């Protein structure tokens, strides 16, 4: 039993968990900004997928992975712009808008993939080399788990304290949180509710796009139809699980990332678990942890309600 556990929880397993958590971290942190400002964003999935595709297109035609990442962020932000326009300016239903973004994202990326590359061909792009951090990367176990990754992984982990700092230690963070909790009061204080929400939704789109770029450019070096495969939704669950706090959300992302790593790990060790059961596992775990939270989460007070200036 103990032998089995040691065999299972290797450094390679945890390193895979960190890698698989990375796209969730980007999207979930993005989602925190949007929701903290009062805009529900179930469109993260569609923005992620759009980012994944835009990133591959960008990296393919510029031949530069970093430019690809920037284009991915722009692609995600473009979808977010639609969401911001519909939910902030038009004051439409934010859930429906998000659902529309998801459908449109899936349709647009699949359609464009077929138009540009056809059915057989696949866009191949160069990814990133692993940056092994000097000294830290040589620590046994921990080095392999945390310090031998492609740069985007470090970026995700740096993003968490940065997001925390911006949200809780800057005046802009204070105003964006007040916009999400009590927009009327914020408005009275001279904070533009409209502009703050636009900026936050755009941030969420750009970060979701970055998460998508990690999947396409960073991991597979190509784009596959519907490759986000529900990660945007898992990110959404992670941020609720993390109570809209960056550090707690990071923990949730690591948990869900490890669940995905287990899918790869279990068959590799010749445990005979059905692949369907394994595929179900991360969603089941997410649902169960979510259910375990019963009554313990409070979203930002004004989330989901459009603001009407009087």
């Amino acid at each position: 039993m103990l032998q089995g556990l040691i065999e299972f929880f290797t450094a390679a397993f945890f390193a895979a968990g960190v890698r698989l958590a990375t796209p969730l971290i980007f999207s979930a942190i993005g989602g925190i900004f949007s929701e903290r400002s009062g805009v529900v964003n179930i469109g993260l999935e569609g923005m992620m997928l759009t980012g994944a595709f835009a990133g591959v297109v960008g990296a393919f035609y510029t031949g530069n992975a970093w430019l690809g990442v920037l284009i991915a962020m722009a692609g995600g932000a473009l979808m977010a712009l639609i969401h911001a326009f519909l939910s902030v300016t038009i004051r439409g239903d934010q859930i429906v808008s998000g659902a529309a973004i998801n459908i449109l994202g899936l349709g647009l990326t699949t359609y464009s993939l077929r138009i540009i590359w056809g059915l057989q061909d696949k866009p191949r792009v160069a990814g990133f080399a692993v940056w092994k951090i000097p000294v830290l990367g040589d620590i046994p176990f921990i080095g392999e788990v945390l310090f031998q990754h492609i740069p985007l992984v470090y970026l995700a982990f740096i993003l968490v304290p940065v997001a925390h700092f911006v949200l809780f230690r800057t005046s802009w963070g204070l105003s964006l949180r007040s916009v999400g909790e009590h927009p009327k009061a914020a408005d009275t204080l001279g904070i533009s509710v409209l502009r703050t929400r636009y900026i936050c939704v755009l941030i969420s789109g750009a970060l979701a796009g970055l998460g998508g770029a990690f999947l396409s450019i960073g991991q597979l070096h190509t784009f596959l139809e519907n490759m986000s495969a529900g990660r945007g939704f898992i990110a959404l669950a992670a941020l609720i699980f993390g109570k809209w706090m960056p550090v707690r959300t990071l923990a949730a992302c690591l948990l869900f990332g490890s669940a995905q790593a287990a899918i790869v790990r279990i068959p590799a060790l010749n445990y005979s678990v059905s692949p369907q059961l394994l595929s179900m596992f991360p969603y089941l775990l997410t649902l169960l942890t979510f259910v375990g939270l019963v009554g313990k989460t409070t979203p930002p007070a004004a989330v989901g309600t459009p603001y009407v200036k009087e």
Partner: protein
Amino acid sequence: MRREWSEAIVSAVFSLAPVWAVLGALLLGGVFIAAAGINPLDAYGVLLQGAFGSLSGFGLTIQKTVPLLFAGLGVAFAFRCGLFNIGGEGQLYMGALLGGWLALSFTDLPAPILLPAVLVASFIGGGIWGAIPGLLRAKWNMSEIITTILMNYIGFWFVSLMLHGPLQESRGYYPQSEILPQASWLPIIWPAARVHVGIFLALLVAAAVYVVMWRTTIGYQIRAVGSNPQAAEYSGIPVVRSMVLAMFVSGGLMGLAGAAEILGVQHRLSDFFSPGYGFDGIAVALLGYTHPVGVTLAAVFFGGLRAGFNAVQRTEGLPLALAQVVQGLTLILVVASVSLPRLRAHLLRRKEATGAARSD
């Protein structure tokens, strides 16, 4: 006189919002068709011809309309209770699983018993998968959006698991069941167009949804919870029961969408048998303003779109994903159309102002 006329025109234009949304989406979709180097008018000609221009095309439209109508009604039913059921796909699979399992277990039963029993089982299977998120939301205020989405994946993989295990065909090649007993099939009523009886069933259910929602106490309670849960609670309406029931029926209708597809078209259960009807139900319901009549019209539209884009894919070589693009765009324009009343009020106010200025 002239003023009344122009007001009538303004009203007419604004009340046709879903039609404008559809036309706008097709117009924008044309841009993507043109981007592929194909004349949008040609493509839309093929689409129209493919969806309604021939007997077989029309039959295909009807065939696609059936699950879309059930799914649209399902989303609409929960929506009226203030709940957003995005878990249609999982409920559809779980409904088809329970129905399919029943049909495969009682192959000797005659059609008049087996078919209704399978439909009821599908309703219950989908209903349970919907009622769980309903209960979580009603009792513990957990977002049904997240739970239904996650249960989509769980339901889908569970069905796949069963099709790789106990329910797999005896040859054991594919993740699919044996052919279902013929007594459980939805009979073909129009052989030339291959239309099965499911379309009448769906229309009947649409009428039933109307009656339940607007002519019964339970429907009244569900709508009361949907428009203001706090007020409903104060006036003694059982909020928890209404929510769970609404999600049960919503999921049940999704289960019927799955049943219609396996009993009417595919005649066996397989994984990936649904091309996303559960998700399409969202667009169908919202384009139809979550009213059974509107939902029916919207289902025919999206059914025609699916059938038509099949033809466009065959003859023009355009990817089928275009149907999804148009669907997403339609939904976006439907959301945008909520601004129309405000725009209208703004326009009328401005006209009154100019009218007043003239009479001075």
